């Protein structure tokens, strides 16, 4: 038998281990026609080398046996998500997702819709045959009212299952897509229109124009329970009555689409996309220190571990005070760890963080028994004061009433940090006052110089505050050292 070369298709389809020229599609199935048209367009446009097809789960699953191009066979419903990954990974490729109406309309609707909304640069061919084909003719979101399927054995009742989902119409509400159209393969005229539309879809991808959706109404004689001719009639009459054919958008040709959606007159001053600074290498990007420029830690077993807890209200600079002590420890080449309270706790108004400083690598990161506790408010004082280690230090803001005494052997310092900061005219600097207290009471085991360098580094992004805080640190420390 003479074989006829089919453009864009493999010459043999080794499905189930056999070399055959027969597809798995039933007689009269729309997929078979669409498969031929897609292969022809891809080949006629010379795009086979560049094309990556993303295949669905469903009756379209075996297109990789037919289309002579690269394929990625995706999970059920996820072809649009996978195609997003493909077109982002390979911007020069032509990425085409092929999906059915259960795949795109039901389980994967949000993936398809969001990909369209993001304007991903791939083309999506969406076969609407009004039901699930591969799994045995169940109801799809696109099933017509009154249509009998294996899960609507009495006909789809809109009162129970809603109305058919109009994918093109829904996607047309989005700004980003550049092409949205619905065609059919129910007769020769429609097949020719369909081929022109598929070609358009490929053109848009070839030229990297944006997201394109082509919905194709397709007969499913097997699950309709009809012969191919009757099934085609059903597709033409009943399905088209529900799903009218047409081009919903072709931005380039008609200007309908993004341009049709009015934009505000003047661009907002606060809503602007800024250019992304570019770096050639990781070393260039990360080569600038964020905080202090510290050398790696040194092992010194003679340096005992010291654990700190800092606590107060959010906004009192508790977390940055902890980071400041941690950065000073790094400058002193200590092993250092900082850990914040996080999650809803952080948003509930209170904030705390722990810092561990050690001459040897740090084991357990949690601070159950701090050597040093710094508290800026009453709730945190009462929560943590009982945990402080014997021989430890508690520094608490003088505004906190001492209703609970620290454990025996723990030294308590009441420091008017909040008031001092207010008196200095910088209420936000209460944490700097606490740093002064840590220095004045020699609570950190770290050099004063490193604490000061770390404080200055913490204002790297607000350099105008560096000298101010350095001055406040010195004045507060002098005041605290007065007998």
């Amino acid at each position, binding site marked *: 038998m003479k074989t006829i070369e089919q453009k864009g298709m493999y010459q043999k389809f080794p499905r189930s281990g056999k070399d055959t020229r027969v597809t798995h599609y039933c007689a009269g199935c729309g997929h078979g026609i669409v498969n031929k048209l897609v292969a022809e367009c891809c080949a006629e446009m010379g795009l086979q*080398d560049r094309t990556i097809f993303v295949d669905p789960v469903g009756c379209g699953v075996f297109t990789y046996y037919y289309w002579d191009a690269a394929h990625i066979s*995706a999970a059920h419903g996820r072809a649009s998500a996978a195609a997003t*990954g493909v077109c982002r*990974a390979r911007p020069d490729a032509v990425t085409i997702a092929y999906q059915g109406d259960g795949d795109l309309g039901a389980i994967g609707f949000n993936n398809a819709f969001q990909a369209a909304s993001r304007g991903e640069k791939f083309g999506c061919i969406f076969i609407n045959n009004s039901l699930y084909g591969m799994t045995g003719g169940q109801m799809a979101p696109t099933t017509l009212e009154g249509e009998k399927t294996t899960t609507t054995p009495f006909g789809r009742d809109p009162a129970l299952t809603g109305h058919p989902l109009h994918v093109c119409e829904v996607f047309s509400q989005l700004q980003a897509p550049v092409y949205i159209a619905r065609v059919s393969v129910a007769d020769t005229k429609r097949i020719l229109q369909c081929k022109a539309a598929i070609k358009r879809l490929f053109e848009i991808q070839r030229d990297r124009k944006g997201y394109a959706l082509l919905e194709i109404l397709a007969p499913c004689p097997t699950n309709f329970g009809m012969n191919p001719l009757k099934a085609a009639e059903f597709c033409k009459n009943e399905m088209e009555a529900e799903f009218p054919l047409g081009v919903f958008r072709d931005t380039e040709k008609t200007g309908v689409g993004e341009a049709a959606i009015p934009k505000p007159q003047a661009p907002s001053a606060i809503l602007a996309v800024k250019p992304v600074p570019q770096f*050639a290498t990781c070393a260039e990007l990360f080569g600038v220190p964020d905080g202090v420029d510290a050398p790696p830690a040194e092992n010194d077993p003679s340096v005992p571990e010291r654990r700190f807890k800092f606590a107060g209200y959010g906004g009192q600079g508790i977390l940055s005070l902890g*980071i400041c002590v941690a950065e000073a420890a790094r400058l002193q080449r200590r092993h250092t760890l900082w850990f914040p309270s*996080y999650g809803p706790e952080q948003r509930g108004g209170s904030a705390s963080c722990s810092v561990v400083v050690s001459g040897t690598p740090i*084991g357990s*990161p949690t601070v159950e028994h701090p050597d040093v506790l710094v508290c800026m408010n009453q709730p945190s004082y009462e929560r943590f004061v009982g945990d402080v280690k014997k021989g430890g230090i508690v520094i608490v803001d003088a505004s906190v009433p001492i209703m609970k005494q620290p454990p025996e052997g723990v030294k308590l310092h009441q420091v008017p940090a909040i008031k001092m900061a207010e008196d200095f005219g910088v209420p936000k600097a209460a944490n700097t006052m606490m740093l002064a207290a840590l220095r004045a009471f020699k609570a950190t085991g770290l050099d004063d110089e490193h604490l000061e360098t770390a404080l200055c580094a913490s204002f790297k992004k607000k350099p105008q505050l560096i000298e101010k805080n350095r001055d406040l640190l010195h004045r507060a420390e002098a005041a605290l050292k007065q007998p």
Partner: protein
Amino acid sequence: MTKFVKSNEAVVMGALYAGCDLYFGYPITPASEIAHGAAKWFPMLGRTFVQAECETASVNMMFGAAGAGKLCMTATSGPGFSLMQEGISYLAGAELPAVIVDVNRAGPGLGNVYPEQSDYTPAVKGGGHGNYQTFTLAPASAQEMCDFTIKAFQMAAKWRTPAVVFADGLQGQMMETVTLPDAELSRPDFSDWAAQGEPKTRQNLIKSIFLDAAAQEVFNDHLQRKYEDMAADAMAETYLAADADLVIVAFGIASRIARTTAETLRRKGMKAGVFRPITLNPFPRERLAAAAKGRKIMTIELDAGQFADDVRLNLAKSGLGAEAANVMMIHRMGGQVVTVDDAVKAAKMILGK
């Protein structure tokens, strides 16, 4: 160059040095800083960050990008990790390299955002459908969050498998000093199998379907052989274990609690040491057996005992049935962390002191 960064940020730095070109992710506490860092730094190096609509999308975007021959990653926490399991099975089934970071939070269900290691089974045994495994690394510091992310990419590429970096909320949030790598890794060439949209990859096919049962079995055999071979890359470390009467077995953040516990016990005159698996899959079985033979064993873990069961299994498979039967455990759940005090008490009980 050293940086004082959150461990979560160290993951992004490691990924960029490893040559990861695409990040796909959906925000979730306590992993969100990974997405924040990726959103900022990936584009600054001309690489791609996509905020997905859900974790199902993230993992399937990875399926596409990995299928197209690029290194890619995502990061999430428990609920998102659950959503990704189907996709991870597909990645394994199509033999695609990709890295998933799980910053474990407390569960089940919504749970809370505090640390647990309760995703042990899905992170280590393959949490989705089918006979697959992942290459799973358990970091315990910011430095390792960076280094093991790099290692995860290398192992993912070497074994053509999804790799999991299995962390927890505590270490995700903590800041430590990280020494950055000296150089970026070069990109692996996947053109012999990937669908790259180029002439030479035109007939490449990425799929996980074998409709023929015999072919599916052959493929499963191939996967199982691969997982056996992966054992060559198992990693572990010991601390004070050589003469220990009690070996504390712990991974990830719990291994640091184990370290302090062992030091505390030593100071009190009790011989305790630590065995820490660094790769949870492949599990460093032989090294565990060597460290544990004839010793008393206690695990420290932040789950219900999934890890202890795995320790027992690995001991039993090493012929150490008696040791396996006597594995003791101290654990906390719900976002609580085992304290050194409690671990020391438990160890003393086991040692009869």
